């Protein structure tokens, strides 16, 4: 089997770059709305000019977000084409509904850009709010797709049959016999899913594998993930603007930047307070329930241990043990006498049926290899996959705790910055005393530091959180069901170094160039008219 690491890294690069732009796409509208509301009340042109500048950055950012989104989408169908089977079934509903969100967020953004400053401010606010709603809806749907990969809702106890420590993923909306038959054929043929589903008439031969098209949207895991991810994105996106203004205020001392910070800081403050205390907690509970191996990796639980604080937060019971891999292995061993053949038989799948089905699908499988697969012990499959998961313990564990630490930094910075900006009885005096703010210069410096820490803490926390989410579900792409090798491309070109290097180069150049362009748009004044007037000899 070809080495999948370069493809996994390429995908991770694309997803992280997309995350940068998505965060701004979701966060900057909050800043724009705050500024427009302030402008509507004060009529101070400073706010409208700032809205124009933030909108220009948002427009370039949106273009980059759209192309990196396209990259991620094609990454799914081209680099991980096995996911086409999921796209055509479990996650089709959110992806199709996302078209509504994507098309409408674009048209409302265009309408906002075209009409800004030309129509009543109230109408501009309404347009950007509608844009924001569609953008959030888009984020909601895409997160539900990713959440299905993390907790494959609607597959009931299919994963549990192989991995006894796993929970049931909602009601059974799928045909387990077909899924198991397909899995055994993949194992026996050594082919990825793409090699099967690309053949004409395969879909009609396999038939219905999903009975409820909306299942991905009904998952409790998805619901919490959606809120957790959207909050993180908005915090980061609006945090960029706060940090940028904080820096400008620190460098120039221009009070206008202070005005801008004050306009947008309160909504960000509320989000930063809610994210770890409410949503982070619920997210943790979902991981405990639906991703047992990931939770054990996060807590470094190679062996089961006791920690009252973690147990209280995770299970609501300080005396509950933190379940470690030792217990998972023990549960695997309970299936020592069960083979894949037994599992197949319990679903009515005989060897002849499997051979016949593979012939119909145009997949050649060697009888000996099929026997070998069917005689494999479920315990062996289970233990091997646990070994693969355990090998990632260090990265997941340390990333998780670094994420927590950076989240705490952002949280404390948000708590500190508000009393510095506003006069909050008692709190302002305490914070100013702790930070030793006794002059305008020290105030400027601390406003910059604190806004920067909100931003950086948010970024690090989100980036590592995503790493924990993705690496923590390995060795599966679809948790408990499919390995990366099964959704990998059939084309040998995808594995060539030249392709990986060229793709990485283009992705980096475009995205870094785009970020630089956003910086230019945000920092340089438009001299277009001046230049044109000078060329024409027009004064004034």
């Amino acid at each position, binding site marked *: 089997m070809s080495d999948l690491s370069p493809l996994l890294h390429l995908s991770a690069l694309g997803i992280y770059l997309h995350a940068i732009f998505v965060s701004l796409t979701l966060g900057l509208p909050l800043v724009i709305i705050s500024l427009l509301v302030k402008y509507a009340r004060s009529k101070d042109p400073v706010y409208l000019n700032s809205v124009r500048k933030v909108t220009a950055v948002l427009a370039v950012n949106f273009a980059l977000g759209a192309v990196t*989104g396209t990259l991620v989408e*094609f990454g799914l169908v081209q680099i991980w084409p096995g996911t*086409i089977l999921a796209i055509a079934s479990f996650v*089709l509903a959110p992806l199709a509904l996302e078209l509504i969100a994507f098309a409408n967020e674009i048209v409302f953004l265009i309408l906002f850009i075209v009409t800004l400053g030309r129509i009543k401010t109230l109408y501009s606010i309404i347009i950007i709010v509608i844009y924001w709603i569609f953008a959030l809806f888009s984020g909601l749907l895409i997160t539900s797709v990713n959440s299905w990969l993390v907790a494959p809702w609607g597959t009931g106890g299919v994963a549990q049959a192989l991995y006894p420590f796993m929970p049931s993923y909602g009601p059974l909306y799928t045909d387990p016999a077909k899924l198991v038959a397909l899995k055994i054929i993949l194992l026996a043929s050594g082919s990825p899913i793409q090699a099967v589903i690309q053949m004409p008439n395969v879909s009609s031969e396999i038939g*219905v594998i999903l009975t409820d098209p909306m299942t991905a949207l009904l998952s409790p895991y998805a619901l919490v993930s959606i809120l957790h991810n959207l909050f993180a994105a908005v915090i980061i996106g609006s945090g960029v603007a706060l940090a940028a203004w904080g820096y400008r205020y620190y460098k120039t001392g221009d009070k206008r930047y202070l005005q801008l910070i004050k306009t947008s800081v309160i909504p960000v403050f509320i989000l930063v307070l809610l994210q770890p205390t409410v949503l982070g907690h619920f997210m943790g509970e979902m991981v405990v329930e639906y991703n047992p191996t990931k939770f054990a990796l996060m807590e470094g639980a190679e062996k089961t241990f006791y920690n009252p604080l973690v147990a209280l937060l995770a299970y609501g019971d300080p005396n509950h043990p933190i379940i470690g891999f030792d217990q998972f292995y023990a549960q695997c061993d309970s299936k020592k006498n069960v083979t894949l053949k037994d599992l197949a038989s319990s679903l009515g799948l005989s060897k002849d049926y499997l051979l016949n089905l593979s012939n119909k699908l145009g997949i050649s499988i060697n009888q000996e290899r099929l026997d070998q697969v069917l005689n494999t012990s479920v315990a062996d499959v289970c233990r091997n996959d646990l070994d693969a998961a355990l090998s990632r313990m260090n990265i997941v564990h340390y990333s998780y705790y670094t994420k927590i630490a950076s989240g705490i930094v952002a949280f404390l910075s948000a708590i500190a910055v508000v009393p510095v900006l506003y006069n909050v009885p008692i709190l302002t005096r305490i914070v100013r005393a702790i930070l030793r703010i006794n002059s305008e210069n020290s105030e400027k410096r601390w406003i910059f530091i604190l806004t920067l820490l909100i931003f950086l803490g948010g970024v690090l926390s989100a980036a590592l959180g995503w790493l924990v989410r993705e690496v923590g579900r390995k060795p599966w792409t679809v948790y408990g069901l499919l390995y990366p090798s099964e959704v990998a491309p059939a084309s040998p070109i995808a594995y060539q170094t030249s392709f990986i290097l060229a793709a990485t180069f283009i992705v980096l150049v475009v995205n870094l160039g*785009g970020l630089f362009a956003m910086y230019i748009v945000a920092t340089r004044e438009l001299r277009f*008219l001046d*230049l044109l007037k000078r060329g024409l000899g027009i004064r004034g």
Partner: protein
Amino acid sequence: MDPSAVPSGVLVGLLTLQLSVAIHIVFVSTTLGVGIITALYRTLAVKRSDPFAEVFARRSFRIMIVSELFSGVWGTIITVILAGFFPGLVALATNVLFTPIAVSIASILIRIPSIAIFWYTWGRIKPETHMLIGWIMALSGFGIPLGFRTLFSEITHPQAVGLYLSSGHVDPLTAYSNPVYWPLFLHTIFATISLGGFIIASLETLTKDVRGVSIGVRFGLIFLVAQLFAGPLYWYTLHYYSSYIFQNVTFGDFTPIFIIKMILVATLLIVSTYTWALTSKLNTTPRSTWSLGLIATAIVVLGEIVNDSSRYPYMVVTGDTGISATAFSNFYMDIPLSVVYIILGFLIFSIIVFGLAAYYAFVKMFVREIPEEIEEKIFK
């Protein structure tokens, strides 16, 4: 094959796909054409210090700013429709046409940000650098059909797909040796520049700028004339390599649409020649100029419908027969058609909002960065 044998769900998939492709093609053709004309005039502005070229380039480029992202979204819509309704085809294409699709994706990656960067850095960076970004923006656009048109040529005359199905071998360049591909690509490129020119001409009538109209018409007409060679060449290629489509277009169900298209081509040729003569000799614009963009758009839509749908009920045509669309369809679940109609409803709503934005941008001149007094001075 009996067309009535195609299940209704598959038919809905095909119609939705055709609708999306037709809309997408109009937008991308417009933006590809406008992009190259803009890059050219931005270059002239820099090289000749020509303020008119500067203003014309910037005014033309408003079309890109307003429509490029909306154009792109229809590409995403097509991908989801394909993967949702015809997953087998997507799986086969992403395997056999891995390299051409990668070329398209790389081009999209460069193209869309470069449009936004070109617009928002105009007047903020050195003109020479800006000019270079303009050419990156313009040329990267043509990389998109360079890749994706292989998909169309392969489902019309499966050369790379045929090689793969018979030998299991994937060659990155076989799709480019498909005899249908290059005539189709040429036909596409000429259509994009011609459409871009005519759209510019129509919109320039709103600014009453005769020079602008003249430039648009010139580009539109030159590439329309070029189409008089590229079109028949593609048609002739179909005769040899995809007789089912050729028959359907020339003597079959799609002949009426094909004839209407030809009548529109003749009309466009006459109206644009008349407009070109008037703008260049009498320095005036005939009232019919506004219709040029509309006629050219209708031609592109009809051409794409004829090209795509004439393969029905097949998805992949092999000479005078083919592989049915049903063979690639999604039977993994029953796609709720009510949801499909709701999504289509919202997409139509998005077209209406886009129309509103375009109206404000072009008719009400909301996207007007250059004050009227400066424009007047330039045009004098």
